[in-house]
């Protein structure tokens, strides 16, 4: 099965599918998207799928704000006859230390300059927003009602269907085993089903991007980090916003289906691929969430799973080209907040790849920033 393409995209997650759609929409032809397993089988299908504009840097605030505006219109834009289940119940970010209070106020300053409708709330006001919240030790919170949550499977499906209609070929259960490059130019990919020749290759393979880039001698400062999530049985809607505590490293939301989806971060996770679920996670998650949201103690856990954050040294994505390898583009290293900026990322990458001026600057996400020592640090990530 040897083939040729104008553009090969590696990775059938929401980022790859969004890029494929945006490229096709702009008139690019002969695009092939390759996915190792089934669509959304990587980080996208395992993520919490929260969507928020409450970031601490202008760039991330703008990326998220534009993405949320796009999520609001996504079903129409993509002609999706189903629902991406976008629920804008807001995000309640909890502050437990003076330092957090200070940081949150700084963040609000950045957000307000960009027109993001976030605000400071007292513990009493936080309890009005989430009546079952335990406010013990809480100093305050920030709230943005436009933040929310989508169904990651449906969102990706919407992009996939629209991309297919525009002629994008999608190959699932096809693994890219090697990138191919010659004389400083990318020439294609080798898969377990044959070679696909292409002058442009876009790598959106999450944490697997590291191993792929290594096949042509590019060292990506990127590593997998296991994160675990659980989902409870569905119940009547009692919680509008996503509740998030950087102090506990925890997020918890009720999705439109009625289930609660929650996860916690563990900085001591080994930096290697690990898809196993652990009972330690269940215990720690349960202890933290029942402290913060006590009535949830009565909910049954129906399922837990694990996925990989693709972490970079500054916990920010790498976007753009790679010097020395013409035609090779990266959209990887999203470090746990890729889903929420996927609409805008797809658009920006399509503009960049086609040589247009990007609607927002993306040079701060340049691959060479690590070598230059110019890390782009975002204060508000879990």
């Amino acid at each position: 099965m040897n083939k040729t393409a104008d553009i090969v995209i590696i990775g059938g997650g929401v980022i790859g599918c969004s890029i494929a759609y945006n490229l096709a929409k702009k008139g690019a032809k002969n695009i092939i998207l390759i996915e190792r397993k089934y669509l959304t089988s990587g980080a996208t299908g395992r993520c919490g799928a929260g969507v928020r504009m409450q970031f601490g840097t202008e760039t991330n605030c703008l990326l998220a704000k534009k993405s949320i505006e796009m999520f609001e219109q996504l079903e129409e834009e993509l002609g999706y006859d189903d629902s991406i289940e976008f629920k804008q119940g807001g995000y309640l970010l909890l502050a437990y230390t003076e330092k957090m209070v200070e940081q949150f106020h700084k963040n609000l300053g950045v957000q307000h300059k960009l027109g993001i409708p976030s605000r400071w709330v007292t513990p009493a006001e936080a309890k009005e927003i989430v009546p079952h919240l335990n406010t013990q030790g809480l100093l305050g919170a920030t709230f943005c009602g436009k933040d929310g949550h989508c169904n990651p499977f449906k969102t990706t499906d919407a992009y996939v269907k629209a991309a297919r209609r525009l002629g994008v070929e999608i190959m699932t259960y096809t693994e890219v085993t090697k990138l191919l490059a010659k004389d400083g130019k990318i020439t294609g990919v080798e898969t377990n089903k044959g070679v696909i020749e292409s002058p442009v290759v876009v790598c959106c393979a999450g944490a697997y991007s590291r191993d792929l880039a290594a096949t042509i001698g590019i060292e990506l400062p990127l590593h997998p980090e296991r994160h675990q999530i659980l989902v409870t049985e569905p119940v009547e809607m009692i919680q509008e916003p996503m509740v998030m505590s950087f102090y506990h490293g925890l997020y918890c939301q009720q999705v439109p289906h009625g289930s609660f989806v929650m996860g916690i971060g563990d900085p001591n996770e080994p930096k290697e691929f690990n898809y196993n679920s652990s009972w330690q996670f269940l215990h720690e998650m349960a202890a933290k969430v029942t402290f913060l949201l006590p009535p949830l103690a009565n909910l049954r856990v129906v399922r837990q799973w694990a996925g990989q954050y693709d972490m970079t040294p500054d916990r920010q994505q790498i976007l753009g080209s790679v010097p020395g390898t013409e035609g090779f583009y990266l959209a990887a290293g999203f470090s746990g907040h890729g889903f929420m900026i996927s609409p805008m990322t797809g658009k920006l990458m399509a503009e960049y790849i086609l040589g247009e001026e990007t609607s927002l600057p993306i040079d701060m996400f340049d691959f060479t920033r690590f070598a230059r020592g110019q890390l782009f640090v975002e204060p508000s990530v879990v």
Partner: protein
Amino acid sequence: MCEHNKDVTIMCRCEDITAEEVRAYIAQGVTDLEQLKRLLRVGMGPCQGRTCTPLIVNELALATGRPVQEIPLTVFRPPTTPVKLGVLAGGTDHE
């Protein structure tokens, strides 16, 4: 529910998904159990597909002409049985 004589055979009892809905997705070309699970929630409920998985596998075999044993199954996730968060946290009365 029963108007127009629609097929109301429930395949996934946890998520209330009918045979008709499953067949509609398969007819769209979604012939991968993993993908069906994620788009329809079949097998995502408390029983984790104990009832619906064999039924859907049959549908997939019929639609694709592949033998049942060649249809890949989805991953079974822990916990084996639904457990209350309060129990996992060490009892509902704990501080």
